[in-house]
């Protein structure tokens, strides 16, 4: 039986969380339910059960709250907007922009983290901090478990996956939605794991939660209630909705990668165009859609995985023009192209 998503119990009140996200089984202990709540929310988004039962690794986090001066990390391992991470002799140490500190000790069994959060924080800062710390905890665990996180959308049909990558705001969610509307199943709209299982490359979805711009309801009638959905984050236009509530039964978990679409928008162009991509260009595109920390062994492994994948799949540079999805046949044409040998259509 696959592991279940974030579970709730009376221990919620005293700040204990037990959840699974991909191949990682997360246990969190916090001083109170209110301190744990942002972490529970961050983990609740990982609602796809891991398809390989019995292959979960532990990641334990103990949280305390204190008013202490901190020594900021330098960002030698990873330098993110709200978190800087340094390598240590036993794992990693990170400091957050709002004053949180987290240290992880790793061994062959899993990862053991301790975090100290500042005493006084706004709810917004507390949630952002939790999001950042959970992202670090999970991405570290996934990599150490042999899985490569990729910032990509994924759709699946007949066990074969189409991965969609783009820079931020590049339109990967819209393209994924256009295919799901046509019957493809959704692996994720922005988070997948690449890895090997049974001697073959596989891609696994992590979230069946969509992050949509309400304006896209003009193209996708299923999103008509988007204005009423929760915000993805404070200051963002995008709304968050569970796939099940708009397209029941359209979620997928696991597939073999078959095609990769590298999407970009082009103003002044109407429609959708797809041009074949060389393997080397595909490797570069994939490398730009994963976080590569300053760790030679980790980067070498990731790049080798991308090179292997690029040699196995078909890659396409997809250009999406203004109002492309307003044309009802746009997705059909793209589907025809990626599904067969039809020459590119403009």
């Amino acid at each position, binding site marked *: 039986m696959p592991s279940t998503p974030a579970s709730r119990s009376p221990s919620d009140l005293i700040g204990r969380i037990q959840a699974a996200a991909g191949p990682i089984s997360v246990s969190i202990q916090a001083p109170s339910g209110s301190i744990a709540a942002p972490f529970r929310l961050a983990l609740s988004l990982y609602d796809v059960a891991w398809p390989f039962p019995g292959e979960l690794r532990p990641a334990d986090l103990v949280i305390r709250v204190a008013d202490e001066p901190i020594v900021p990390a330098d960002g030698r391992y*990873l*330098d*993110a*907007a*709200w*978190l800087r*991470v340094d390598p240590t002799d036993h794992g990693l140490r990170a400091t957050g922009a709002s004053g949180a500190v987290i240290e992880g000790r790793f061994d062959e069994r899993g990862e053991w983290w301790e975090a100290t959060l500042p005493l006084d924080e706004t709810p917004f800062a507390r949630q952002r901090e939790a*999001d*950042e710390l959970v*992202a*670090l905890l*999970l*991405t*570290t665990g996934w990599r150490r478990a042999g899985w490569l*996180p990729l*910032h990509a959308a994924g759709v699946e049909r007949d066990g074969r996956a189409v991965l969609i990558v783009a*820079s*931020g705001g590049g339109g990967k969610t819209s393209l994924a939605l256009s295919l799901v509307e046509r019957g493809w199943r959704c692996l994720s709209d922005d*988070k997948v794991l690449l890895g090997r299982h049974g001697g073959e490359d596989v891609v696994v979805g992590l979230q069946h939660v969509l992050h949509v711009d309400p304006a896209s309801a003009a193209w996708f009638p299923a999103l008509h209630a988007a204005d009423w959905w929760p915000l993805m984050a404070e*200051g963002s236009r995008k709304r968050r909705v569970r796939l099940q509530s708009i397209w029941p039964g359209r979620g997928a978990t696991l597939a073999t990668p078959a095609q990769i679409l590298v999407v970009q928008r082009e103003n002044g162009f109407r429609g959708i165009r797809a041009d074949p991509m060389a*393997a*080397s260009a595909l*490797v*570069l595109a994939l*490398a*730009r*859609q*994963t*976080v*590569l920390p*300053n760790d*030679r062994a980790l*980067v*070498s492994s990731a*790049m*080798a995985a*991308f*090179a292997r994948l*690029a*040699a196995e799949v078909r890659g396409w540079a997809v250009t999406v023009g203004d109002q492309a999805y307003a044309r009802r046949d746009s997705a059909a044409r793209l589907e025809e192209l990626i599904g067969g040998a039809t020459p590119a259509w403009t």
Partner: protein
Amino acid sequence: MAEPGGDARTWVLRADVVATVLDHGALLLDLQSKYFYQLNPSGWAIVQLFESPTSAVHAVERAKAWGAGDADAAAVRDLVGQLLQHGLLEPGSADARPDGEAPAHWEAPTLERQAQPLQRVIVSAFDPSIPLAE
């Protein structure tokens, strides 16, 4: 900039330059500068020599053994010069004079730096995008 033409000084690929072999050539990623460099098969064969300490002189010798003519020998020296210019090589120890692995088909070696480096500062541990100003 060092003159690699007749220079017997040895150089070695920096430890934080990651090479990824492709079906055709290879990609180098400099973890310091975050730039990618694309090599054709001959270029990769030359760069591979510098995984051990060796000299530009030896690289030219190997290229000639693989079929390089005089014009390509100049291209090999240029390639080593580019590697030095981009800081991908650092001083090495005694010349290991590796044999290396000949490319399937010799052609003039090329090295192309990609226009855009990877982001130094990213959104989060999961998202490699450019952080938006607040």
